[in-house]
């Protein structure tokens, strides 16, 4: 019966795959890491860092799962991991507004839950035994402006290239820029603040207009992302202005290249390793009996010509 052969082949494949992975021993702690999407490159860096942390300590094992950007799949994975009697959960939400059932499931199972990178409880207090590790966009803006303030020696005029105006990242990064100016650099004036919708070409157009409008009063440009910053760099090159400092956020490869050749003064990197390790550390300490803070803020990393080599 060929059909039986086919069945046999299938079962062999199945069990083969299973045994290749090996069975886990029951002692020690098992932590489930439910990623939003393995295709999300940034998230894989976060995940790798969490995995590396747990691999470095005894008695801990981490199980990595892929939600393929599907909220239901994420919920299913969480329930399955709970059925498997894991000891703790780390979740990168697919959709922060849909985490209620996951929080309930973890609570009913009595296990700690740590959200990483995306916070379902923005502006709300977290329930007991639920933690969050991530970065605050406002810090990115602050770190950018701190450095700009140093470069400008506390005086001059800057323009801010904002991202899409309905985006929290854009608003918070800009808020960060402004708060540092207000607190630390009263001598620096914000000449203009306009949206380039995250786009390189729009960043370029706005910068061209600013050069015309403000001339030598314009000394620095703070962009909410690297694309717009690189647009500004193009506009400055075309107009021959080499005295203006430009900064972006994201540390995309183009931006790091521009920091390397001096056309971009700095970019800001969201610290994937810090977040992944942070989530792992929180769970580690909960399971070993301590009570970490409900929220752990991971700072961004400012990339300048001085430390660029560390990020290549």
């Amino acid at each position, binding site marked *: *019966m*060929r*059909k039986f052969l*086919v*069945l046999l*082949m*299938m*079962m062999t*494949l*199945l*069990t083969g*795959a*299973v045994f*290749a*992975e090996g*069975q*886990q021993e029951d002692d020690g702690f098992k932590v489930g890491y439910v990623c939003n999407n*393995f295709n999300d490159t940034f998230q894989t860096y976060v995940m790798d860092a969490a995995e590396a942390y747990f691999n470095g300590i005894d008695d801990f094992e981490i*199980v*990595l*799962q*892929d939600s*393929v*950007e*599907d*909220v*239901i799949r994420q*919920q*299913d*994975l969480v*329930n*399955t*991991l*709970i*059925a*498997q*009697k894991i000891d703790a959960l780390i979740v990168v939400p697919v*959709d922060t*507004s*849909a985490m*209620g*059932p996951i929080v309930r499931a973890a609570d009913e199972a009595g296990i700690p839950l740590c959200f990483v990178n995306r916070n379902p409880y923005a502006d709300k207090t977290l329930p007991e035994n639920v933690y969050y590790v991530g970065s605050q966009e406002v810090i990115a803006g602050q770190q950018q402006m701190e450095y700009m303030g140093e470069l400008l020696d506390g005086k001059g005029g800057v323009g801010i290239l904002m991202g899409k105006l309905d985006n929290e990242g854009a608003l918070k990064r800009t808020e960060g820029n402004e708060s540092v100016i207000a607190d630390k650099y009263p001598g620096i004036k914000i000449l203009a603040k306009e949206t380039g919708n995250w786009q390189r070409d729009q960043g370029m157009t706005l910068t061209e207009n600013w050069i015309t409008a403000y001339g030598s009063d314009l000394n620095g440009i703070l962009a909410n992302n690297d694309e717009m910053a690189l647009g500004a760099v193009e506009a400055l090159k075309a107009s021959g202005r080499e005295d203006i400092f430009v900064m972006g956020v994201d540390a995309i490869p183009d931006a790091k290249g521009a920091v390397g050749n001096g056309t971009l003064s700095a970019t800001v990197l969201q610290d994937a390793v810090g977040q992944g390790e942070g989530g792992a550390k929180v769970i580690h300490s909960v399971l070993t009996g301590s009570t970490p803070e409900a929220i752990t803020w991971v700072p961004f990393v400012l990339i300048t010509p001085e430390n660029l080599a560390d990020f290549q």
Partner: protein
Amino acid sequence: MSANKNILKFESAGSKEILQKYGIVFVLILMIIGISILEPAFLSSYNVFNVLTQSAIFGIMALGMTFVIISKGIDLSVGSVLALAGVVLASLAQTADATGKYFPNLAEMPVFFPILAALAVGALMGGFTGLLIAKTHIPAFISSLGMMTVARGFALIYSDGKPISTLVPSLTRLGGKLFGFLPIPVIIYFIMIVISAVLLNKTRFGKSAYAVGGNIKAAEVSGVNVNQTLIAIYAYCGLLAGLAAVVFAGRVGSVHPGAATGYELTAIAATTIGGTSHSGGIGTIWGAFVGALILAVLRNGLTLLGVDAYWQQVTEGVIIVVAVIIDMRKNATKD
């Protein structure tokens, strides 16, 4: 094949027939035995209900897909239709104090109305796909591919690209459990299995679906209204996508316009694994149920066993292909 048959003569016709008819059930049983030996937690009641719940959404979609594939068609739009029906449903079922409410002045209404709206959106979109296929004779693959993109676009337009959340408890309750252990998605799923089985086997609509898929010319000659049948089939498939949206919203408590991306393929896979033939005229509701269960058991089991997430996808793909091989052999023996 005939030489092969002769070799197998020693086998009684009865057992052979059983194997042909229920081959896929054996696969399921083997999987269940294998997984529960390696991980006893698999058969805990908590996990069994988990698996059933996990199969409910794409299982419900697979029921409608069974009608479509029996009629020798395919409907790639159901995932997008789920998203569209879902955002409409969610917009009508937000709590009064939801932040960023879609309809700020809309009072809370009995959850029956938003659900009806979701079902209507699903049936309308499906019916339109059927109409396209019936009237223009564009292949179902292309018509439904077009509708897939259109429905996703509408979902994005309607929701402005944002998730619609904070839904009324009477809706999220539908994602919960009855008496603390019986998942309501599973109850809805089982009711739809019964309704679909009756529709397919006991009504003229079901017989027409088989007739259209088996031989469209013969169906026409024997008095089946092919166009009406096609429209009804796709409308029913869409309606079930709308119902799947209700279960989705119940379970998640929020609907994103990008929801259920790729679910059409899971539904098609479940239907196909269950033995519904893409050459038309052959297929059962029972098969779709078993197919959906196989996929859910597979996903759940591989996770329980700690198989690498990348390998899970590979295994899922292999199982689908192997199931179709079995399916084709079965039909070949019949000829």
